[in-house]
């Protein structure tokens, strides 16, 4: 066997080992490296009251209520399944914060089950549609949460 082929073997074996190690590490991080929790994850394993977490999902259509003080809003975040979490937030809303679109709320779960958000981030989905085609057949945007909220089925 030539030295060249020994080196080739070594490189191939090393690559396989590195890829396997990387994938195992990524797999182990699966739940830890999530940027946010979905409503069903938060309902199943509620974080401690006051613990800083992020909640992500879709803003339920028709759920945004502006409160009497004019700067606070209440809305409902939905996930893949039917579970929902109500969110309260007061402050400036991002431009892309609209009903039926993705949102990430930073804050903590209150003792009354309402998520108290200290910061809101709008989440853009993978669809790019020009304004004049909006609402036309085939340009409906995302079909549902599974398309825009990745990683969970």
């Amino acid at each position: 066997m030539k030295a060249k082929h020994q080196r080739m073997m070594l490189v191939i074996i090393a690559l396989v080992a590195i890829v396997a190690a990387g994938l195992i590490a990524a797999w182990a991080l699966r739940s830890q490296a999530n940027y946010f929790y979905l409503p069903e994850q938060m309902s199943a394993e509620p974080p401690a009251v006051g613990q800083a977490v992020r909640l992500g999902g879709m803003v339920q259509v028709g759920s945004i209520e502006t409160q009497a003080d004019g700067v606070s809003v209440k809305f409902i975040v939905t996930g893949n399944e039917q579970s929902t979490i109500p969110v309260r937030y007061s402050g400036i809303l991002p431009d892309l914060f609209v009903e039926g679109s993705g949102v990430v709320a930073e804050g903590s779960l209150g003792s009354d089950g309402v998520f108290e958000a200290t910061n809101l981030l709008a989440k853009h989905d993978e669809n790019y549609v020009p304004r004049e085609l909006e609402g036309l057949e085939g340009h409906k945007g995302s079909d549902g949460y599974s398309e825009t909220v990745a990683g969970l089925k």
Partner: protein
Amino acid sequence: MRLLRSNGAFRIGSYDFALLLNSLMPVIQVGETNVHIYANPKRFLSLAKWLMPLLFWSGLLLTAGAIAWGIFVVPEDRLMGETVRILFIHVPAAWLGMGGWTGLAISSGTLLIWKHPLSGIAARAIAVPGMVFCAICLATGSIWGRPTWGTWWEWDGRLTSMLVLLFLYGGYIALAQATAREGGSYKIAAIFGLVGAINVPIINRSVVWWNSLHQPPSLTAGKSAIDPVFLWPLLTSVLGFSLLFGGIVLMRMRALIAEAQVEARLRRRALDDDTAMENT
């Protein structure tokens, strides 16, 4: 080429891997004969001499056209408005940042196996433009994220793994330069290039494996969530940037080869001077 003997050296369990390697030999041999034609530095230089300006100027022209198309012709996005135009720089930059490391890793692998100096030169030539495009991707993404998400930076899976790629490029460049200058083994940088390749599939899959702020892939095998009105200038831009990248890499490879030749000549002359001094 002699086939491997089944002497048990590659036996794992009841399976002899020498059999598998022997069956792969014809493929490896064909690859070698084809590759070695271009691995000749002289032949490479004559090829690069006309290929480099071709790639560079056609790439520059296509890129400029695609960006002008993206800025002046393309309509606004239904949600993002004008900020959608960043797409035509951000996506090609991301593609080249990741593609660059893929090329760097392949060059590093062939350098370790065939020990051909051109592979090492290719890896070093890719590293700097790869890092530049990676930085462009992060910067444009940040500028886009502020109006769209409401934040310049968030530690989500995609953003973090892309930042790691930038640091990997920095590490590779420092390592390759130090070993080239101080005369260390070329293997160190090559191994680093191979090991760093694990980050590329992680970047690619980060938005699928984990809940992330960054949106999932818009272009998947045969499916596009991007309207054709954005998709065509985007594909043109990706092609243009890629050609430009190829031109820059060839330019840098020629420069690195020229540098090595100058150094070799200077060393030879210094040696001649020494012997001449001794003779007098």
